[in-house]
């Protein structure tokens, strides 16, 4: 099975080719999204300019979920085919996903203040994103709980899969819990009712966030590969 170890050189070549493209596409779409979002699109008739926070809040929440899905997929590949590169991809995804989640929460609170009058509202979506943050923190903590990286990778992979199965159930329970205690939140954002002029900047920003995710993921995997080889060389030196 040793030969099946993914050849990191091939991955590094692909990464070196993709990163410039994804980075520049991200910058272009980000700049366009920011310009349209902040200046080019109308304010909301109800909320005024606070709606512009949506161009950061919504893509961050989307990417938080997309990152967790990537982590779960990579974990499944790592567990089923014992593919060490997949472990590294899962490990590299987590901090990015956690950052997206944190940004979604902060911008959500900042958006909530003028709209609902308080910094934190137990809105179903915000609560689910908060729980998602705990899942990320738990995943990262599990990675650091073992000395042997292979052991940590296996445990984290199982947790990611358990998490991805539980996510919809948690989302369902929180939505149900939220509707019971509070009338459906006033805001209906992100649905088809969104004003077309707002949709373009939103999608541009989503594309920018996606490119950012791909670029940073490839960079972090490169870092993990170097760290792994560094550890091995140091171990070899200790024994050499």
């Amino acid at each position, binding site marked *: *099975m*040793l*030969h099946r170890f993914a050849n990191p050189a091939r991955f590094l070549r692909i990464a070196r080719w993709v990163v410039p493209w994804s980075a520049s596409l991200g910058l272009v779409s980000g700049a366009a999204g920011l310009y349209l979002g902040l200046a080019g699109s109308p304010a909301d008739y109800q909320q005024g300019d606070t709606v512009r926070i949506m161009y950061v809040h919504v893509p961050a929440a989307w990417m938080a979920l997309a990152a967790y899905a990537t982590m779960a997929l990579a974990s499944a590949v790592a567990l089923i085919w014992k593919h*060490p590169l997949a472990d590294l991809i899962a490990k590299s995804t987590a901090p990015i996903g956690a950052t997206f989640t944190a940004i979604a929460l902060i911008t959500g609170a900042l958006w909530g203040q003028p709209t609902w009058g308080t910094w934190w509202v137990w809105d179903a979506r915000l609560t689910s994103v908060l729980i998602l943050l705990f899942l990320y923190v738990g995943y990262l903590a599990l990675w650091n709980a073992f*000395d*042997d990286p292979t052991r940590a990778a296996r445990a984290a992979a199982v947790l990611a899969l358990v998490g991805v199965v539980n996510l919809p159930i948690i989302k369902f329970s929180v939505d149900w819990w939220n509707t019971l205690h509070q009338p459906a939140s006033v805001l209906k954002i992100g649905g088809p009712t969104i004003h077309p002029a707002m949709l373009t900047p939103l999608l541009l920003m989503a594309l920018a966030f996606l490119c950012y995710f791909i670029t940073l993921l490839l960079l972090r995997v490169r870092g993990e590969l170097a760290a792994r*080889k560094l550890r*091995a060389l140091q*171990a*070899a030196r200790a024994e050499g």
Partner: protein
Amino acid sequence: MLEARDLTCVRAERVVFAGLGFRLSAGEALLVTGPNGSGKSSLLRLLAGLLPRAAGQVLWHGTAIDDDLAAYRTGVHYLGHLDAAKPALTVAQNLAFWAGLHGVAAERVMPALASFGLDGLASLPARFLSAGQRRRLALARLAAIPASLWLLDEPTIALDRENVRASEAAIARHRAQGGLAVVSSNVAIALPDAHGLDLADFAGRGIAWPDDEAVP
């Protein structure tokens, strides 16, 4: 008949041993020696199917053990460094549990304890046992539960002269009945005409992550 071909073991991203092979047929024993950290325990855990192989094959009666790991394991005893004795249970209850789990009649428990001089302590909670006595309780498991392959990791540690002889006798009896034994030990242990395997010869070097240039 147990055969290992081109076994490679990786632990914590380091190649512990590589290219290891041996063949063992009924009644034979293999004495595994090697410096600390050369992977003696890893080899035994690998043969028990507890540790995944990085490469190579382990064949039992010609078929790979992974085809039906559960079936393979019903015929295998693994004795690790730890004795798996629950302090709160008595000596007899400890052995009866493992015997019951393997579907062995309860009558075999006392004779197995007797073969290691523990029948007098049968109703004593295990927390009062000395290290040597706990080791003998673990060895009694081999006598109580029939298995054709014994994987023994430093079986005679903490045993006095008399009990070392008792375990050597047990291994000899096991081999006489056609059983196989893979024993790792740095302490002298009488294994008549056993094959030797020094793990130093198969020591793996360098990293478990072959990048472009060859693994050093």
